[in-house]
């Protein structure tokens, strides 16, 4: 029978999902995580269970672990977000020619070698186009289904985690963004907590990174639930311990392109920003800083825009910062980096500056000497009688 509607029919939609499951094992839709036996033996919950569940909903504002800095004076922080892994609508900038990796490496390296480097994977990593609708509507070219499922995205995220660990990160923190929350709603799974950490936590236990010097180091990777979190930074010196704090606000949804608009959106969506020494809001749309609030740039090509609007190109490279930690609690300053010199040219530049200064001193001394000579000329009262007599004699 002739296919009257070749482009879209229920049969094809079902077939492609079945095929996908057969090929990859990926499932879609919400999953009740209880076993069949558990379901058979279950009974209705009471007030006590309700109160327990309500208590569990409260996610504490402050992370219960400290970010520890031993001896170093600086903490280099890098924000990596808006990866949009395997999404077509707003792919990562530089994904086609691997310059995306170079950009991450550049952000990690823009610091002093002695600085501790903390990397936040601050949300919107797994992308949006992994749901069943995207699969059902996927094009097929050269017998390839142009759809990239959740498992592929998680595998890619792990690649990035190892890349970051090998290129300078000392500690990595993963936080949920909108994409991860969407997955939680649709699939009933906390992707970063359940899927990711279970999958490769065992690898992490034995994981060691060989650094250039031949030494090995373990990179701590943590998953931190919540979208509004305060982190204590604990700096341990020989004689004292100091504390500073930062807050991080992920999960921002806005199409505003100004910092004020993004700040208002973050305040509204997070029930006010959590005050801290510095407040970080990973944002694709606004890049910059406003008082102690810093909006870091993401990795995607475009800013978020209203549906059907043409998006604007996003700005890159404002995602790494150095916190200079002072010798008092909460005495902290921020800059992009504390690399203030070019090691190759610095000595020559200083030498030239010193010579210029000496020339300036000599020029000032010469001006002073000329002024003094002139003063003597004008102070010198000529002897007119003597001069006139000598002229008569001529």
């Amino acid at each position, binding site marked *: 029978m002739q296919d009257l509607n070749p482009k879209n029919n229920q049969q094809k939609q079902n077939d492609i999902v079945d095929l996908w499951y057969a090929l990859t094992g990926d499932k879609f839709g919400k999953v009740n995580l209880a076993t069949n036996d558990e379901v058979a033996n279950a009974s209705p919950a009471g007030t006590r269970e309700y109160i327990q569940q309500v208590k569990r909903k409260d996610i504490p504002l402050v992370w219960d672990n400290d970010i520890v800095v031993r001896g170093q004076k600086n903490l280099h922080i890098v924000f990596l977000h808006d990866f949009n892994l395997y999404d077509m609508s707003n792919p990562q900038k530089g994904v086609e020619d691997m310059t995306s990796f170079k950009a991450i490496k550049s952000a990690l390296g823009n610091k002093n070698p002695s600085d501790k480097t903390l990397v936040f994977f601050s949300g919107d990593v797994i992308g949006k186009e992994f749901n069943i609708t995207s699969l059902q509507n996927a094009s097929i070219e050269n017998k390839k289904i142009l759809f990239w499922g959740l498992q592929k995205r998680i595998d890619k995220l792990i690649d990035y985690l190892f890349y970051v660990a090998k290129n300078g990160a000392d500690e990595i923190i993963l936080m949920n963004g909108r994409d991860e929350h969407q997955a939680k709603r649709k699939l009933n799974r906390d992707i970063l907590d359940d899927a990711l950490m279970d999958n490769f936590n065992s690898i992490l236990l034995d994981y060691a990174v060989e650094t250039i010097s031949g030494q090995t180091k373990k990179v701590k990777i943590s998953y931190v639930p919540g979208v509004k979190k305060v982190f204590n930074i604990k700096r341990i010196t020989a004689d004292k311990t100091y504390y500073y704090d930062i807050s991080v606000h992920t999960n921002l949804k806005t199409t505003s392109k100004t910092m004020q608009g993004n700040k208002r959106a973050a305040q509204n969506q997070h029930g006010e920003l959590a005050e801290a020494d510095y407040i970080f809001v990973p944002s694709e749309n606004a890049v910059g800083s406003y008082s102690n609030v810093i909006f870091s740039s993401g990795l995607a090509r475009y800013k978020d825009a209203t549906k059907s609007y043409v998006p604007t190109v996003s700005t890159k490279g404002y995602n790494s910062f150095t916190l200079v930690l002072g010798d008092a609690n909460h005495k902290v300053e921020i800059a992009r980096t504390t690399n*203030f010199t070019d090691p190759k040219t610095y000595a020559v530049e200083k030498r030239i500056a010193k010579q210029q200064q*000496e*020339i300036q001193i000599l020029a000032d001394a010469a001006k002073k000497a000329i002024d003094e000579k002139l003063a003597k000329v004008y102070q010198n009262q000529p002897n007119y009688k003597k001069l006139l007599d000598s002229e008569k004699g001529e």
Partner: protein
Amino acid sequence: MAFKKSENFTQDTNNPRLMTDRNELDAKKDYILERSQDERSDEIRFIKKQAMNVNSHVLLATVTDIHAGGQGFDAKRCKLAINEVAKCFNAHIYIGGDSVDNANNNPNCATNSFGNRVRPSESPEVVYDLLNDRDVKSKIVAILGGNHDAEYGNRNKQNDTSISHHIADALGVDYVPYGLIYSIPLLTPDTHEVKYQNYLFIHDAGSLDKALRLVNIVKEETGLLLDGIMIEHLHQGQEALYTVPVPVYDKNGKRLGDKNHEVYIGMGYSFQNGSTIYGSQNMFGQKTNLRVYDLSWQLNPYYTHDKSTEEPKYKPCINAFNALAQDADEPSMLLKMYQKKYALEINKNYESNWSKKPLEKITTELKKKTESLNNGREM
């Protein structure tokens, strides 16, 4: 075309006071490339300057909105900030508009504050004293007029005198009425070639959109692509990065497409705290400060040879921080780190030695030192 390049700075004009007379090489390190003059009147619209000294890193200090003499003016922190920054041999000190709060002596003057801490006629002296230091003066790029102290400022209507122009003349530095385009030569990190970063300084752009539009307007007018626009007036101390599409043409003028150009918008602080009772909350705000920028070139990680028309090989690294600590009247930790590298101590023995020698010996030594420096440059 609205503007023409002025050929002769001393030509007859109806308004000679609007033009600065200094058309010669600035003895310190900058020279004027162009004074763009409006055909319709004699006004100087903007000045294009170029720094001479080449470094890998430069410290640009934007001393904006000093509001000297007005209620809330923080003289101690202002002097401290300027002097500390001036210690760095690679500092470029730009004095923004509103260096004076109340330029006219009208008791009903409409300024930020409803009270002066200093008599208006004496407030220019306050600014002059702040800046009249050898280390500071030698690093001043220019002084810009603002709405409080320039000839057409709305808070200066009764006066129609440019106080900031007088201060610039007294110090022997350049005065800029509306806008300054400043080109700074910096060394590239890999090949150590000289490449210029271009910054526009204006007191107020009106709105973000208008500021961003200046990128294409300035490119059309001067051929220069701006890397940053430094705005004042709002006393906010912010920074932001935007992407602006810039048309690309071939050598025949045919439009090829657009290039996405990243431009930095910086906004300086002020040295005036709260100044009126209805702004009392400002008295509880942060202390006054000076925004400084460590400028350099960095390699653009997105650059490849194939994408050379879309992605530049080098991107400006504009590393902003505060000059003063927030909790004390002292340089910030970051400025202290910077000074460890760039502050030059004046050799007092050298200075006192040569100040006593006769003129002939001084000039011989001067000649020797200048030749040695020039030889180094030629090599």
